[in-house]
């Protein structure tokens, strides 16, 4: 009895020694989207020690796994209004969540065949690497380090976030120039502060920065009226606005002061899976461009004359088969989830409390950055 216990003790102690080492290097969960140096260190230190770091990879493996499993596992955020949360009925909702549904619709023709796995900022890349999730769709900013060292590939930008500016609705401020001589609340020591200085300098607008150590006190100062405007990432502004006494009394200006391209991420090593994930994004873009919605897709499919539309919806050609899917994959996405505009308006549109003006997230024909390659 005691011997067994001693052996058990050895095992437990051994694992705890590892726990202590790993624990010390594990960074605290970061609320923001910045990859800290620590996060990178953890991954690079661990990677050589464990050759089995990367879960099943290789051309076509992910799609096979997903199909065999019968559902997609999608890593999402569970705490960001408009992007990922659980509604009162227990269903996941949000912009990033709808992308997962579109991918499931493309693969299975059924947007419900997806399991949502809430992942935190700290664990998201590990979850992707270890194969716990098939795709990460969790307001993650595309950066070089994440695209290389963290073992993932960014599929495409689905939401161009960026530093925005929030002002009281009754202030009459609509552009950055209107802030001439004003006070702007900003968190110190962040790229936000530097961006603000750069943008204002290039516009020739003079202002007084009111700097704070953390996000909470920055927004507390703004809500007390100590400054005329407050700045951080737009998706952050939307979330922060909800905490203010009267969220409707504040507007987010239609300006973008920095690059924060957010998009889904897949594991390195499976190009087919990457293509499927990427063309799902393009199908959403193109459907909006061609004016195809979930409401009229059946009609368009029956009457379409434009060759590209016919190819996309699978009336002609076999584009879907080339992706490893069925030819009606794009039809399923549009029919079951909608086009980009529908997804956007459902979660971030003017009728929602989490309204963000589309700005850069418009089609290129409307002055935005959304541009899909041809379906050919």
């Amino acid at each position, binding site marked *: 009895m005691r011997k067994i216990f*001693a052996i058990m*003790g050895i095992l437990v102690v051994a694992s*705890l020694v590892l726990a*202590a080492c790993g624990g010390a290097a*594990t960074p605290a969960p970061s609320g923001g989207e910045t990859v800290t140096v620590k996060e990178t260190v953890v991954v690079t230190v661990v990677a050589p020690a464990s050759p089995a770091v990367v879960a099943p990879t290789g051309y076509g493996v992910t799609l096979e796994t997903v199909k065999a499993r019968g559902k997609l596992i999608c890593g999402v955020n569970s705490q960001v209004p408009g992007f990922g949360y659980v509604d*009162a009925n227990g269903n996941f909702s949000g912009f990033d969540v709808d992308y997962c549904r579109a991918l499931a619709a493309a693969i299975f023709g059924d947007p419900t065949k997806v399991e949502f796995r809430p992942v935190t900022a*700290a664990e998201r890349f590990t979850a992707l690497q270890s194969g716990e999730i098939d795709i990460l769709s969790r307001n993650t900013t595309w950066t070089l380090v994440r695209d290389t060292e963290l073992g993932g590939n960014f599929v495409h930008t689905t939401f161009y976030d960026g530093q925005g500016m929030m002002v009281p609705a009754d202030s009459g401020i609509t552009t950055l120039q209107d802030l001439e001589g004003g006070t702007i609340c900003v968190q110190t020591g962040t790229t936000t502060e530097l961006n603000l200085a750069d943008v204002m300098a290039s516009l020739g607008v003079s202002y007084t920065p009111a700097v704070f150590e953390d996000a909470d006190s920055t927004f507390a100062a703004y809500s007390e009226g100590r400054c005329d405007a407050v700045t951080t990432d737009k998706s952050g502004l939307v979330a922060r606005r909800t905490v203010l006494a009267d969220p409707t009394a504040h507007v987010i200006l239609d300006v973008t002061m920095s690059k924060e391209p957010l998009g889904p991420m897949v594991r390195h090593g499976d190009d087919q899976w990457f293509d499927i994930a990427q063309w799902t994004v393009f199908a959403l873009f193109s459907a909006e461009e061609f004016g195809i919605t979930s409401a009229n897709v059946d009609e368009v499919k029956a009457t379409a004359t434009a060759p590209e539309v016919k190819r996309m919806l699978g009336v002609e050609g076999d584009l879907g088969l080339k992706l490893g899917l069925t030819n009606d994959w794009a039809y399923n996405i549009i029919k079951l989830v909608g086009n980009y505009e529908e997804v956007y308006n459902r979660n971030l549109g003017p009728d929602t409390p989490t309204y963000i003006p589309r700005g850069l997230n418009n089609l290129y024909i409307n002055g935005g950055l959304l541009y899909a390659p041809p379906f050919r």
Partner: protein
Amino acid sequence: MANIDNVLPPLTERSTILRWLRKNLFGSWLDSLLTVVGLLIVYWAVKGFLTWAFTVAEWRVISANLRLLMIGQYPIEQVGRLWLWLAFLAFLAGNSFGIWARRSWLAVGVLALPAVLALVFPFEGSARNWLLALTVIGAAGWLGGWTKPEVLKRSVIVGWVIALPVIILLTHGFSESTTGFWTVARTNLWGGLLLTFLLTVVAILFSFPLGVLLALGRRSELPVVRWFSVLYIELVRGVPLITILFMAQLMLPLFLPQGMTIDRVLRAMVGITLFSAAYLAENVRGGLQAIPKGQYEAAQALGLSGAQTMIFIILPQALRLVIPILVGQFIAVFKDTALVAIVGLLDLVGIAKTVLAQPEFLGLQREVYVFVSLVYWVLSYGMSYLSQRLEERLGVGKR
């Protein structure tokens, strides 16, 4: 007879409210002043909260999300399974009260609790019926235990022993088919108070024996056993729980072989259990050290073996001594489970955070967190109160 009637009772000061007030609150002008100032402070504090709670607060965020807060995303078709094990627990509790705590107000309170909840909180129709049924089932169990205590004693004990496996089995389900009552409800759907409860119960039930073993190991004469117990206890106590959880959720998947994954909820359960065991071990060791040497010698003189001495003489006394500390540790475990929200599990706190991100309920942080705190307080205080009753029954501090 007449004599006795004529004897007057001893003079006692009649205790009226006014008299009590004058004696305790307005004894002197200083007392009066302190009373008035104190009342004013209480008034301001309570008034602010009550005004907010009854006029400003939008409690519909709670009523709309009650199911989410209680059981998370647990599939609605299978909710009946949760009610089944709740009914099982209610019956066992009723039985136990009937057998061991006859005529106690506590029993009445515990058994009536579901019915009171059903009447006070806005549960859906079926949930309300189930809650009322729980009280009825509990009362039936109590009646059974009351009338046939000797017959039922053994089955009740067996019932408590198999309670955890029954709970886990019913919560998880076992049918592989996609629909139906017994379909597996995967752990990623477990959430809210259900997940908090399961994490707590599993951690308490498994860390207790582990803690006792570690405590005995630390006092063992075998150096290897002793060193490892000491090493384990000191290492785990030297690391915050959150790092153990991070380790389990972040590092473990990287060490596992390809394609192998361990359930996330299970990882959290194991992490909390291992953590709690180290603390329990020290608590139990405190009890062991309080047992005088004479008890060991007396046991030896009676010819008991080492193991028999431990099991029949030392541990019962040592554990009884440390009940208050053990319960304190259990309450701490219950509240520590909230940390799993940080590693992406949707326990009561995790689900509260996601409720706060619902567009229709934006900015209702206060309501949600007040509710969550209330739930934690009620359950923690319940544990504390039960332990006090247990101490009274076991005569801790009197013997």
